[in-house]
């Protein structure tokens, strides 16, 4: 039996919390404090750090409220992953600890740091405002309070899961693209936008969608699925992001964003050749001028190393392409009928 298995089976033991500390009024840079306390199995990380604050170091600062996984206040990075302290068992984290017996606690990433484990949520709220993430009623004001606004079960199911979001910002903290550019819309905001856009009571769908396809919007997501993997409520966030993209292509076409043109190219190429024609993908996505400016130096290197993708005429179609094309078109007619049915309802 390994040491870690022995630890895991113990009912009571010393646990060290290695906590990120920073007080901008006195510290020039962040540091870690170790707090070792004796704990029993069944204790959550939040109860442990509450104990530390009450009995060991009252200066330790963090946010927490409901202690039941509902309010979303106590999200923090525990052993390198953002999650709620109140729903995380110390014993589960001991199993994942890189250094035996030591649990690392840090503030969320991708949001401005205020003190110790507390981050500024204003940028997230600001983006919620920027993308108009509230229901603006379709019903004329004169009817308010007089008429009911009925939502069918089917309509509700479209955003049921998205309403589970408690705005804890764990996904925001783990987002790859937000880390690379702070203007990026972020997963929690996209999830909320999706939820609003599929709500039959809302009237701002078109404006919201027009905002979402701009720079730093929905097309900048790099499909890393970290948001979804992090979500403390197991919400399939990528389904929402893909839902917005599907809607954007359907309603706005591919004219206004490189992301949509890039995605649509896959569809064209599969129908035509059964495979992707990579050589012209940059041009079809961003135009010739962009491609020359951005990719020419690299293209030269690639030519030297003989790793340039073949020009379109030299991309051999998949064997059996005729059958594939026929099937592809047949599915296109199915999709057309689905649309007719949907718009007829």
């Amino acid at each position, binding site marked *: 039996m390994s040491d870690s298995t022995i630890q895991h089976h113990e009912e009571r033991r010393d646990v060290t919390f290695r906590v990120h500390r920073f007080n901008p009024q006195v510290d020039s840079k962040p540091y870690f404090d170790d707090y070792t306390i004796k704990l029993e199995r069944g204790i959550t990380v939040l109860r442990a750090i509450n104990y530390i604050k009450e009995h060991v170091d009252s200066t330790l600062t963090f946010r927490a409220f409901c202690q039941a996984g509902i309010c979303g206040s106590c999200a923090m990075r525990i052993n390198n992953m953002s999650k709620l302290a109140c729903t995380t068992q110390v014993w589960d984290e001991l199993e994942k600890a890189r250094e035996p017996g030591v649990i690392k606690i840090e503030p969320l990433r991708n949001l401005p740091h205020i003190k110790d484990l507390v981050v500024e949520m204003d940028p997230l709220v600001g983006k919620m405002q920027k993308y108009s993430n509230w229901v603006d009623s379709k019903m004329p004001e004169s009817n308010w309070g007089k008429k009911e606004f009925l939502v069918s079960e089917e309509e509700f199911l479209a955003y049921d899961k998205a309403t589970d979001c408690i705005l804890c910002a764990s996904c925001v903290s783990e987002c790859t693209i937000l880390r690379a*550019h702070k203007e990026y819309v972020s997963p929690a905001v996209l999830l909320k936008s999706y939820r609003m856009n599929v709500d039959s009571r809302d009237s701002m769908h078109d404006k919201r969608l027009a905002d979402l396809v701009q720079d730093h919007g929905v097309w900048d997501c*790099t499909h890393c699925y970290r948001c979804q993997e992090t979500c403390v409520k197991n919400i399939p966030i990528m389904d929402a992001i893909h839902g917005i993209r599907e809607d954007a292509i359907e309603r706005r076409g591919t004219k206004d964003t490189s*992301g949509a043109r890039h995605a649509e190219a896959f569809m064209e190429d599969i129908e035509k050749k059964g495979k*992707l024609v*990579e050589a012209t993908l*940059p041009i079809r996505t961003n135009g010739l001028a962009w491609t020359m400016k951005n990719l020419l130096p690299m293209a030269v290197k690639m030519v030297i190393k003989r790793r340039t993708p073949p020009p379109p005429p030299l991309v051999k179609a*998949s064997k059996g392409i005729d059958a594939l094309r026929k099937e592809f078109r047949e599915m296109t007619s199915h999709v057309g009928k689905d649309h007719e049915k949907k718009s007829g309802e």
Partner: protein
Amino acid sequence: MKRYAYYQSCINESMTKEVDRSIELWQHDLDIEMVKMHESACCGGSNLDYVSPKHFALVNGRNIAIAEKQGLDLVVSCNTCLMTIRSAKKKLDESADLRNEVNEILRKEGLEYRGTSQVRHLLWVLIDDVGLDVIRKKVKNPLSKMRIAPFYGCHILRPSTVLGKDNPLEPTSLDLLLNALGGKSIPYEHKNRCCGFHTLLVAEEESLNVAAEALQEAMEAKADCIVTPCPLCHTVLDGYQGKALKQNGLKGSIPVLHLSEVVGLALGYSERQLGVKRHIVTV
């Protein structure tokens, strides 16, 4: 000799030809054979699923049906193809309506999606079918003294509901293989993070920042090279390496090898044979 239906990823037929070339070199040494699927089609590269969910199910249902007709598991060596085809499989397995609609079309070509073939990554085949003990015995040129930064890439790990092989937070499969080949895999935070590939043409600045951080961390950890099981990650980390580092004011360089190449190196093939010299950043 165990046979597999080998799905030919678009990128491996154009920019990263060395992947398939190296697999062809060593496959029989490990008593496996990758039978190329000439009739398969592009999986949609994690884009077709939202451009048209039904075409996505059709194309990938067809890809899997071709493997099923041969009675073989479908094996890929590109993470995004893996995730994309597996998520189509999940949708088809979960919805009888979708399956029937796809099969109604496929039947005319004599194909049927039944859900009998598994969709697997080459890395998983090496670990689960060939086995690390056998691989250890076959190693002729152990990668000893080589400090390797394993870079898993996203789509072999996430979404875990579709992949489910490795722990997406603490993956071990690639580390185990690299160590079986005699190398030393080193821990670093970026091993399960993103390379930025999927936004390269849409948000290049962001993508290159993502790549630069991974490269920087591997270099700071004093790795001799990065090894990835995904040709898309390779394209960013190798092909765009200079540009990514420059954009972020970073210096240095680090070779990036394909999984299939390090297997080949350990089995005694030369860099030239495996195509390592064709990389942008050469060793």
